[in-house]
């Protein structure tokens, strides 16, 4: 792994929330590297700071302390405008609750993302790739949760981002559908050579990752390199 090129460097990142008198530390001095093309799974119990970290990596939130360097540029001192461009060009998000625009069709939801980036992939091809070629003109309300999540993945992938961030992509899905989503993500990781970070509190999912990062109370408590990741179809929980 050391031979791999570093995509992102996280150095001493902390995040504090002031809640009246008390200060909540959502992240405490977190440091890690993300390598180009790897498949990372972040594990941890509820409230351990996973989403907070992901938001900071994705340029959606700023840390209270520390810095994040992406492809040699420190994004943590970006202006609002540059952060927006960063999210537009470099990051693909997959949300736990899909978060599709309810009044746009599947393909329109994907196009909403691609029409503002410079290097987007062919939308139809990406939709085919996630197996939704037939259903691209349907509205979210006409699709199942799994289908909606695949649209959400297509939306993130079609932007052709450097980094795909998924916050509990299977959280709202049943086992079988969850596995399908995970194999899609794995395929995208391999076929498009995209770096993928998945957040979950589902331990077995760690088995498919190149690397597993465990968090607790805002800290990384363990980083485990997985030399032989198993295909998602082999996961059981």
């Amino acid at each position, binding site marked *: 792994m050391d031979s791999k090129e570093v995509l992102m460097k996280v150095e001493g990142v902390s995040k504090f929330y002031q809640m009246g008198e008390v200060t909540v530390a959502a992240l405490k001095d977190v440091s890690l590297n993300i390598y180009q093309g790897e498949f990372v799974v972040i594990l941890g119990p509820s409230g351990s700071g996973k*989403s907070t970290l992901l*938001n900071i990596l*994705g*340029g*959606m*939130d700023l840390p209270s302390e520390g810095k994040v360097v992406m492809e040699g540029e420190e994004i943590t001192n970006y202006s*609002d*405008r540059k952060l*927006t*461009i*960063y*999210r*537009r*060009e470099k*990051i693909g*998000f997959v*949300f*736990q*609750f*899909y*978060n599709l*625009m*309810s*009044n*746009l069709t599947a393909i*329109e*939801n994907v*196009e*909403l*993302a691609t*029409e*503002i*980036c410079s290097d987007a992939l062919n939308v139809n091809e990406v939709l085919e790739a996630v197996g939704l070629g037939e259903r691209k003109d349907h509205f*979210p*309300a006409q699709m199942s*949760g799994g289908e*909606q999540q695949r649209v959400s993945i297509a*939306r993130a992938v079609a*932007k052709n981002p450097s980094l795909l961030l998924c*916050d509990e992509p299977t959280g*709202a899905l049943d086992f079988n559908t969850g596995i399908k989503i995970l194999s899609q993500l794995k395929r995208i990781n391999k076929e498009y050579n995209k770096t993928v970070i998945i957040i979950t509190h589902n331990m077995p999912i760690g088995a498919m990752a190149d690397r597993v990062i465990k968090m607790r109370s805002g800290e990384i408590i363990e980083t485990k390199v997985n030399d032989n990741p198993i295909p998602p179809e082999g996961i059981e929980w």
Partner: protein
Amino acid sequence: MVMKRLDVRLLRLIKHSKGQFFSISIMVIIALTIYISFNMVADNLYNSIYHYYEETNFSDVFIEVVRVPKTAIDKLYTIEGIESAQGRISADVPLRVEDPEEKVRVRIVSVPNEDKIINNLYKIEGKDLQVDSKKTAVLQQFSDARGIVLEDRVRPYIAGREYPLEVISIVGSPEYIYLMENEQSLIPAPEKFGILYVTEDFAQSALGYQGSYNEIMVKINPEYYNSVDNIVDDIEDQLDRYGVKSIVKREDQLSHSMMMQEVEQLEAMATSITLLFLIVAAIIINIMLSRIVKNDRMSIGVMKALGYNNISILMHYTKFSLAIGLLGSIIGIVLSIPLSAAFTNLYIFYMNIPMFEMTLYEKYFIYGIVLTSVFCIISGLIGARSVLKILPASAMQPEIPKAGHRIWLEQIKFIWNRISFSWKMVIRNIFRKKKRAIFLILGIALTYSITMVPIFMSSVWGNVFMIQYGKYQTMGYNIDFTIPMNDSVIREISQLIDVDSIEPKTEIPFELRNGWKKKAVSVIALPENTSFYYFESMSGQELKLPTNGILLSDRLAKAIGASVGDDILMKSFLPDGDDTYINVKGVVEQYLGTNAYMTIDTMNELIGEKGLITGVLLNSKDDVVTKLKDVKNVKQVQSVEDMKNSFLEFMDMMIYSVGVMMIFGGILGFAIVYNVNVISISERVMEFSSLRVLGFDKREIYKMVSRENGIMAFFGILIGMPLGYSMCKGMIASLAMDMVTIPLIIENSSYVITAIATLSFVIIAQLATVRKIYRLNFLDALKNRIS
């Protein structure tokens, strides 16, 4: 070009909320239609009037004298700035018509024998007036109203003789675009009063003005328009010995000033109605957009996470209001064209401007679009501004539940504990959205006050009439003589008709001056203990006619800035009248007309005569009009009945504008209540859905919404009452007419009627939202929250 996905989303958003979209658009449409068409008609009217003036060489100054020879008129040319001056003879005489009961008066006006006639006639039909003295040209409004056609004969009754004149042409005149006998008349009555143009020869011989005139028309060189006042002073000096009765500048000429008032009123309406509707539309847009943005919090987070910047998201929502503005503008423009044409036709119908034409002033289209766009963009930006505060990370978080606060009413335990659970919910809901509740209450208050103005106006005229003719002046008939007569004439009249009571009066025009302020009015002299007149001070105390001094009507006192105790100058119009100072003993309320009052003794002393009167006042059940018809020296017999009738016509005209204003008030009220309701229903879909799941039925939910509206309507009406009162007050001030004072007497019934009208607007608007609640699919709503 492929449409941007955000714009596709916008279109579907609009489709989804089309009820609101259109109801706000309607307000913009109304605003713009009124803005464009009123302004266009005002411009058309103004330009047509001035075009007409130019074509007919309309006079700049009008002078009334007792009698002036031609030589004196020619001498006026020595005054610098006077371009031309022409004399004419004018006299108001009765016209004999088939029905002897009907009282018709005409003004005989001579047409000067000049090349370039001032106030030239605009021939609509027939031949030019020739030297033939048995022919007449009739003013169109009069001929139309009385069905007079060419070759008919009209019979004016001049100095005890009937003169049958053949109608040779039907004409228009710039002097009588708005045809009223005098400033005392409330409305034009073209079937009762008309103008007959005759040759100078005829007028001079029939009216006894051989070689002389009683009116002069003056054109002023445009370069001297700024010094009209000096020229008027010079004219006054030069003509003093011919008995100047009045000098009227064009701006004060009756028809002209009425027409200019019309133009100004159109412009003022264009501005005020447009602004009112645009402001209300802007507030509703603002509320609606902030609701949409709030509902879209998650979507906005996603957009930001996808890399959309603040400006494009803000634009996305602002386009919603811009779409309203543009749709409203386009439909408004389209509607304004036929509306302007209809208005123009109405003016052609009512006014006598033969060259009235309709021009489209495209500039108003542009102004209108810019105006509405600015309003919509600003309200959109303000409404959607919270977009800026939403963080991209919001896309990840489910909605943060809003912290529930106790409302202050809950502190007052003994009240709160007595309120039933469902009412508690209603009250909490109102307090939870304080700003919106305030807007709704103010909107209802505004609707109330707008609706109140016409209701007040339609009832106040009856009051004006009742007080003026039931309290201040109680005579049944007002008779004027052609010349001053000895007061022994009272006995003769009493022999002719069976009178209940009779009093002498003298009515003479004077110019009253106080410092530099002056006003020409008719001074009425009465017996000291008159029973026909009742004088009341502004504070409601009875005043008696002073033995030495004068009473001024309130409007007159204001016009010349005089108050009780001041000495004012009375300038006589009579050829050898003296100017005297007189003390103001009181200021009296007078709704109709502007006069000053004194005793006959004071008047006689003033003019140096004894026992002369110019008319009588009387009460009688006898047939006064017929019996005095052919009596020599009786100029006119005016009955209160006549005035009542012209009043009724005036009221008819009022009812029309009452209706129009009610409609505007209604639309405004409807739009406010409907939109606010739709917004709060769509915002509370979750809440209603939860209530439905808990077992509430649709009717109970609807009842809750109705109660909320009921409470707000109650407070709206409560605030609307004082607001309506001040709006009526403002209306009176803005209507400040020369001849009429409108008293601010608001009947209790007006308050009640207005409340009923306002409540109906609220109920209609609420009924329009019933569908929204009954169609509410609560399962969908609950599901949507998750996915």
